[in-house]
């Protein structure tokens, strides 16, 4: 049986970064990708805007991925594409990973795992859309696959539900290909996507955005013929009497992403209800010893640059992991915060440079983020605004805050009136 120090599952941006950093830290590394090519979802993201934080330039998705693919080529990382993990079991203090590929079924052994499995899109049924089941109802990623990878036009006159980033990108993409985008409808009262995408993908193309609206029903037996759109109240419940019928041949859904953690669950990894990703510590190790998580499997990121960053961290820590004992202490979040990652600190580890990602629950203006340890404020930062679609990132030296085993660590937000 082949033996590895680090096995990385998923060859998208998180997995690529993890593979490079694991190798750079001396680990014998295996990278597994189920598709024929590396790059994950970046392969179909042909728009630009990737890499601004990391490289200071605007790259397309494939270009961004290629930088990492070139890098991983230079390492000793073993890469297996068209290979699918069917099962992982704990074995001899490590893991037995069973792989299926054109070569058959093989089990390899690995000391640690990095789960870089990305996320999937929520579907029409998961947002309770009713009616018939015609062709022409696509998630934005599926429509993007048809358009950008297969070069096929999936819509002529479409409605986009959800203002998530892929939906906004697809609104522009389909417009550029000659399709009519009637509008983007969002059940929430604020947009879900990045502000820059609202401007660059909608405003620049005069595509209307309707907030507090949702699709309640679809019609059409063969191909989609029309949709019913309703206004929704604050709890996002459709308001009777506000229904309007819109003729269209496609409904494109951008209604949320769900981290893929089915493999993680089979390994007993605890998931966070807020992120749907593994609960982890500053080294991105999950509740299970030796299992690390990164990228969109850990939590849905807004920028790929952060996906790569978490991949690097997970890959490095997996490479350096030698079964050291851990002491976890919670980072509690206030109710204004949707979540923070990591959710735990390992007091046995070096916490002098912990990258903390967080999102606010609502749009907040003029607020102050505070970090308190045992009631004492150890860090604070003012924000002009916080928006849930925009993830925030901080690097903090937790080793300097006097944290002890039973310390009460709180990350909270004060909304100030007098700022």
């Amino acid at each position: 049986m082949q033996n590895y120090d680090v096995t990385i599952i998923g060859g998208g941006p998180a997995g690529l970064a993890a593979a490079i950093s694991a190798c750079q830290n001396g680990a014998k590394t295996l990278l597994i990708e189920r598709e024929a090519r590396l790059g994950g979802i970046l392969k179909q993201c042909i728009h630009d805007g990737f890499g601004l934080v990391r490289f200071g330039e605007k790259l397309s998705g494939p270009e961004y991925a290629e930088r990492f693919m070139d890098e991983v080529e230079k390492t000793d990382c073993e890469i297996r594409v068209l290979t699918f993990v069917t099962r992982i079991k704990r074995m001899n203090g490590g893991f037995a990973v069973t792989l299926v590929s054109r070569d058959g079924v093989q089990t390899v052994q690995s000391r640690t795992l990095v789960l870089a499995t990305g996320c999937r899109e929520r579907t029409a049924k998961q947002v309770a859309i009713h009616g018939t089941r015609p062709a022409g109802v696509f998630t934005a990623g599926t429509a993007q696959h048809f358009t950008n990878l297969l070069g096929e036009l999936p819509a002529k006159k479409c409605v986009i539900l959800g203002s998530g980033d892929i939906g906004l990108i697809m609104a522009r993409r389909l417009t550029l290909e000659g399709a009519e985008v009637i509008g983007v409808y969002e059940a929430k009262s604020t947009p879900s996507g990045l502000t820059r995408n609202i401007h660059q993908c909608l405003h620049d193309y005069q595509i209307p955005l309707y907030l507090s609206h949702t699709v309640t029903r679809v019609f059409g037996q063969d191909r989609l013929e029309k949709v019913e759109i309703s206004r929704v109240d604050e709890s996002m419940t459709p308001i009777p009497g506000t229904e309007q019928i819109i003729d269209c041949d496609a409904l494109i859904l951008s209604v949320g992403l769900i981290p893929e953690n089915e493999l993680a669950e089979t390994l007993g990894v605890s998931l966070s209800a807020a992120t749907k990703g593994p609960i982890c510590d500053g080294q991105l190790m999950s509740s299970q010893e030796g299992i690390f998580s990164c990228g969109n499997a850990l939590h849905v990121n807004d920028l790929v640059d952060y996906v790569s960053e978490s991949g690097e961290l997970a890959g490095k820590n997996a490479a350096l992991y030698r079964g050291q004992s851990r002491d976890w202490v919670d980072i509690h979040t206030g109710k204004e915060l949707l979540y923070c990652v990591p959710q735990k600190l390992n007091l046995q580890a070096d916490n002098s440079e912990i990258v903390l990602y967080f999102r606010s629950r609502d749009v907040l203006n003029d607020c102050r983020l505070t970090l308190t340890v045992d009631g004492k404020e150890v860090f604070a930062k003012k924000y002009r605004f916080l928006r849930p679609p925009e993830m925030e990132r901080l690097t903090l030296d937790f080793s300097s805050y006097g944290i002890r085993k039973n310390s009460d660590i709180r990350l909270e937000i004060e909304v100030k009136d007098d700022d």
Partner: protein
Amino acid sequence: MKRIEHINRNLQKRFGGAVRCEERDGCRIVSGTLDTWQQVVAACDLAADKYSKTHVVNDIVCREVKPASPRLPSLRDTALEGDAPDVLVIGGGISGVSIARELTKWKLDVLLVDKEADLALQASGRNDGEVHPGIDLGKGSLKHYYIRRANAMYGRICEELDVPFKRVGQYVCFDKGYLKPLVGLYCLWRKYHDGIEDTKLISGEELKMREPNFSERFRFAISNPSSGCVCPYGLTIAYAENAVQNGARVSLNTAVTAMQVENGKIVSVSTNRGTIYPKLVINAAGVFADDVAAMADDRFFSIHPRRGTNSILDTKAGVLMHSIASIKELSASKTHSKGGGILHTVHDNLLVGPDAVETWEKENTATRKESIETVFDKQTKTMPKLTQRDIITYFTGVRAPTFEEDFIIEPGRRTENIIHCAGIQSPGLTTAPAVALDIEQMAVAFLRKQMPVEKNEKYDPHRKGIPVLRDMSDEERAELIRQNPDYGVIVCRCEEISKGEILDALRSPICVPTVDGVKKRVRPGMGRCQGGFCSPLVTKIIADEFGIPISEVRKSSAESVITYGKI
């Protein structure tokens, strides 16, 4: 039996002379004009005797009903022009395909037609797949006559046809302890009077041990170990494939539009693909069975469609229970269907539902939010951990009951060369294997009057299904991949379906080269992402296999365009 005067008195009382009933040609014809469909159903119910062979024929004009003709395929050709099969089976649901398969035991030219783009697209593909034990069926009905025999056949049939079947058992749970003696007597009655032998009572503790996630409040349950589950469309497709392997022909996208009847005999049958001249017609047309009977000039019953919606839950919820839970309402319920239930499917999902709503729309399978909510309100009482958050999809089917709420399995009453297999609703999936054997006998007996009917010596009851690699041991899987490396390329990540399995579906005896056709046969797109990842890949595989542009691949029907061509 209700007397006609009595019926008319009740109709008068309820509808003030708007409708009346008369007995003609052994039927009860109800006519008049009413406002709502609910009234129409109520009036016909008043005229009907449960399980009777004297059927209600509904001639009431309903003001609420917008007349809708059946959806017909757009295809027009002459592929079947002049075709003269010995037997023409109308309907590619479980009834039609099982009859066709049994008929291939004989040297007969059997042609099965269905107007849809695939088999099992109506009720047979839109039910929960329960193989019923028959606990709730009264003696004297055809449903009861067939259920025990058919239930016992399931193990063998599913083995022959290579489809998964699990006898998981069914529980009817009760929360009122004081009912136990009464229900105990009921079970004894069912056992000795009706022959439902495996039924027994189990205690609340026993139930808790078997199904720990069921509600704490249950005091006891009726246990029906002979109950099981099967994939209903999988079984339908398997039956049809076996029929085709044994010489039957299946023509999809083929709608029967008219019949020419002379002297009590069907001379020809018109379809969108040409005129067919069959010796014998078998009416297995589901919700359209009364329309087909009318075309054959043999209208002696009416179908009143009843809609039901089921939800499918993620396999993650599948671990909550392992059997079938059914709610039996002891109150005198006006609805004819059971209150639905929760079922652990052969694919390890949970299926929750269905509800039962009367409708005039035979083909409206659009789902409604209210149905899901009704069903969940009810079923969470059985299993409190059930949550709508685990739903991955939902679907609606339309049952095809008569007003007598029983099957019609008999030769035509006025037209001699037709056999009706009509009024098929629950437990019609369960009873199909046994019903098919009887209809086979009727058909052979009829045909023997005009031609010799000999045994088909080459008949092979065994059909080999497409291998399911995810269920195999590593060794078996590796061996298959060695023979065909495409089995090692996973296309659908949720259900772990390989390219090899998808290609097998495209090369199967009844090839339906659509995204839905592949999905029905080997399940890519059935999982939690609902085809989000794999549908473009499946589309591409279909295009490559047939050498057609991607834009020519369809979701299901000829009009269900997926993409419009190169950008």
